[in-house]
């Protein structure tokens, strides 16, 4: 190894600082406590408490949903027609009054409110919203509105975390991050899937991977799942049938599922995107009746033969996975669920879209699998596998969280055999959805609400400028540490550049300006070696793949910054100056 780069050196220095901060047996109790309770460590401990409180809240939320279901719809699997019609209708009226007069922020799913807390309100979420969400969403889901408990749980977790953060007087940076930490806890408890919850929050809410936040998010998610399992058991939401992929040619069938799922996602998202603003634009008095009308229509759908569309519907996903419906009925159920969820969601009824998305995906997946099997009887058909892949497909196509969609299926199924079909189908769904519906559903909803939150999808796919886009080839020869000032003067005299770069020993780079060389010559120091003169004047180096933003940190202090090869730090790939950077940014704006 030639030498360490400046960034590596900086990292070592940082590590050394951290090492020195480690509690020592000789330190005083005060410094031990200070070390323990440094804000980042305190934040980690706080994340565990956030997980615990979110887990407890989600457990109570689940209890309340079940109680509402039992008392409003009855305890049996076969529902009475009167209850089917009256429960969601009357509940809709109550919900409308509560939302309009007491909890106006409780509308919708809650994902965007959490993002808004992160990007707009410095992590602040009013506790009242969580209380409102807790009661209104549980009443809606329990009475049969076609919504799920996951997104409200996410918002409840985020709000609890925000409340705790406020009481703890955390710094603004920490406060901004605390809502996603709570969101992960709430989602993980609701979904009984900590990995998917962490990924979703990173992918859809925070939008970036940083070690600091990742640790907190994981801790809170895991602790909330532990609490949830303590009270509700560790069983997954549905029984997973044996999953198998017999022949690679079956992947074509899954690709078709991806295409159909992508189209269904677009239809679902377009429906919400176009109907929601229209419903919101209706006169104010109609807001009192919209959830009730949605409930009435859902009741009618249920009465006409689709009671499965009521509520979150996890038990029916389970049945679909075990081949208890014909493929034709599964396709009808997928269509009815899209209509029912559209009605519930656009009417402003509080509740989540995760469960309906999974329901539609499972039904569609099993239906497509069944239809393919009917057309090609030699094709191996396992409804459970198709339903699982279908769930991932809708997740990728509708919620546009491609990574979460894959890991969610893996985590729920506990079977890695399914990974190839899931990736293939999800990719098709995601690409189709992106092509036909450029804005993701959460971005659409945000803009409809008059907010401008960063689009995670756009961020993920943003083309960022790198150092290599702005750097110039090193035109002037590079001098070595054992070259003299006189040689530098000769080089500068031959060329037009004002700076010459010098390779120092044992590693690193230095730079000397024309002006300084001329001064040294005038002072009669022509024979002095550049290595000795520049010994303590190292300049930082960059690598071609680093973001151009990083160059901005150096180019105003050093007129010319070397861009070096990562494998050989003494090999110059190019040079970059402030002018190069600014010109590149100007050109990029034009592009």
């Amino acid at each position, binding site marked *: 190894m030639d030498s360490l780069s400046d960034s590596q050196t900086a990292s070592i220095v940082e590590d050394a600082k951290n090492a020195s901060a480690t509690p020592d047996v000789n330190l*005083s109790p005060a410094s031990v406590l200070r070390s323990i309770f440094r804000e980042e460590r305190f934040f980690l401990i706080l994340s565990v408490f956030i997980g615990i409180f979110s887990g407890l809240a989600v457990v109570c939320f689940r209890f309340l949903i079940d109680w509402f279901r039992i008392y409003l719809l009855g305890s*049996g*699997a076969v529902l009475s027609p009167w209850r089917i019609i009256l429960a969601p209708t009357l509940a809709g009226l109550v919900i409308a009054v509560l939302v309009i007069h007491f909890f106006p922020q409780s509308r919708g799913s809650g994902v965007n409110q959490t993002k808004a807390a992160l990007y707009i309100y410095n992590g602040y979420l009013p506790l009242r919203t969580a209380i409102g969400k807790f009661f209104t969403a549980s009443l809606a889901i329990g009475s049969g509105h076609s919504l799920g408990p996951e997104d409200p749980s996410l918002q409840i977790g985020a709000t609890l975390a925000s409340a705790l953060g406020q009481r*703890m007087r955390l710094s603004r940076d920490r406060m901004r991050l605390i809502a996603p930490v709570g969101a992960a806890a709430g989602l993980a408890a609701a979904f009984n899937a900590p990995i998917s919850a962490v990924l979703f929050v990173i992918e859809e809410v925070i939008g970036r991977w940083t070690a600091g936040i990742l640790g907190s998010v994981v801790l809170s998610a895991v602790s909330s799942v532990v609490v949830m399992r303590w*009270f509700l058991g560790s069983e997954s939401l549905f029984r997973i049938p044996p999953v198998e992929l017999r022949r690679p040619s079956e992947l074509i069938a899954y690709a078709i599922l991806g295409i159909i799922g992508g189209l269904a996602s677009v239809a679902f998202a377009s429906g919400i995107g176009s109907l929601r603003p229209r419903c919101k634009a209706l006169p104010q008095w109609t807001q009192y009746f919209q959830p009730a009308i949605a409930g009435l229509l859902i009741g009618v759908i249920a009465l006409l033969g689709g009671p499965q569309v009521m509520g979150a519907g996890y038990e029916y996903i389970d049945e679909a996975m075990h081949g*208890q419906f014909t493929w034709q009925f599964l396709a009808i159920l997928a269509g009815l669920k899209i209509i029912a969820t559209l009605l519930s969601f656009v009417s402003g009824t509080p509740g989540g879209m995760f469960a309906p998305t999974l329901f539609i995906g499972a039904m569609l997946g099993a239906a497509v699998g069944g239809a393919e099997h009917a057309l090609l009887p030699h094709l191996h058909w396992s409804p459970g596998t198709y339903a699982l892949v279908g769930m991932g497909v809708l997740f990728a196509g509708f919620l546009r969280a491609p990574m979460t969609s894959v890991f969610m299926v893996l985590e729920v199924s506990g079977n890695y055999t399914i990974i190839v079909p899931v990736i293939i189908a999800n990719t098709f769904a995601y690409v189709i959805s992106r092509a036909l519906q450029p804005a993701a559903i959460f971005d659409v909803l945000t803009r409809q609400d008059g907010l401008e939150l960063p689009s995670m999808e756009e961020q993920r796919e943003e083309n960022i400028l790198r150092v290599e886009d702005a750097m110039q080839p090193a035109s002037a020869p590079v001098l070595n540490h054992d070259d003299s000032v006189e040689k530098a003067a000769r080089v500068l005299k031959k060329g037009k550049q004002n700076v010459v770069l010098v390779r120092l020993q044992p590693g690193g780079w230095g730079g000397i300006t024309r002006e300084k060389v001329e001064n040294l010559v005038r002072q009669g120091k022509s024979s002095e070696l550049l290595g000795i003169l520049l010994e303590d004047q190292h300049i930082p180096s960059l690598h071609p793949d680093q973001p151009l933003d990083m160059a901005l940190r150096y180019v105003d202090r050093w007129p010319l910054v070397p861009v070096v090869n990562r494998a050989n730090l003494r090999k110059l790939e190019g040079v970059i100056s402030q002018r190069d950077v600014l010109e590149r940014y100007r050109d990029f704006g034009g592009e």
Partner: protein
Amino acid sequence: MTTGSAKRDFSIYLRREPVLLALLFGLAVLAFLAVGALSRIFHAQQDALAIRWSTRGAADLKLQHFESAATEFRTALLYSRGNFSYELGLAQALIGQKRISEADAYLINLWGRRPENGLVNLELARTAAGRGDTEQALRYYHNAIYAPWPGDQEAQERNARLELINYLLGINARTQAQSEMISLAANLEDDPTQQTNLGALFMRAKDYEHGLAAYRRALSIAPHDPAALAGAGLAAYELGRYPMAQRYLQHAVEDAPGDTASAALLRITELVLQMDPFRRQIRVAQRDRSALDAFAVAGKRLKSCPHAAASLAPAKSREDLQAEWGKMKPQMTERGFRNNPDLVNTAMELVFKIERTSNQGCQAPTDADVALLLIAKLHEGS
């Protein structure tokens, strides 16, 4: 760092993070207790609902109202997810509704949780048998037989094996069925009904020797058991032990006068014993009389069924039989027997030939014809 500043720092931190964390911990404990109390109420209600619906399901399952039983078990499972017995009940209800693949999904899941459970293995064996998967059926039946059953282990094991035997006999796997029956016989109690049932199974497998042994074991405990008497009579009859068959069948008919099958069998058995000229320890006159009777019966049989004989036997053979019978008839006198000591054998050979030929395609043979066929089988084989 001075002692004063250290103390100040310490007091600051004591006021802040540690205390806050302690408070949070206390709050978490309180919240845990509160949710725990709520959880107990919730689970008590869920359990009550689960029991209510599963009780209804079990009752409907018993009454074979499979559709409502399935709905009720499904409802019970809403309140007690993953409950083993409810899932098993649901699987049984689904089997009752002939929704085998759905039932299988539940059963395989249950088997994964308790592979040693006898009832699950038995149900899986039944569904595998239903879809014709013999290998899986045998595997699950054997699992069920050797599973630890609750309650009367032996009875459950026996019932599972009986079911397996019935299955094997149903698919014509007689050899495997016989070995299972022999295992069953070794573990059977001294109960005449069980022994009689075992005997009947042996009879279905055409293992008359073991069948007779089982019936005799039953009779050693209950000498007047009509089913055992009839079974023993039938087994002895099938084995060609007609005197023994006669003895058992006589008792069977005496004890159960309504048993027409045994009565019919007894009639044939008695005819066999009467008409057999080769039976031991009879006088010459009696032997001649039996041969004469047999010859007459065969002649009648040949006359009653000329068409069938024509359709089945080669023309030459039929003509030969008729000619042969006609040629022999004048010799069939007491004098003829005295003059020709081989005449009995020759006549009976012709009788057997006629009866065998007529048995293929003619109308149902009379008892006497059946008796002659049995005598033929007894002395000539086949």
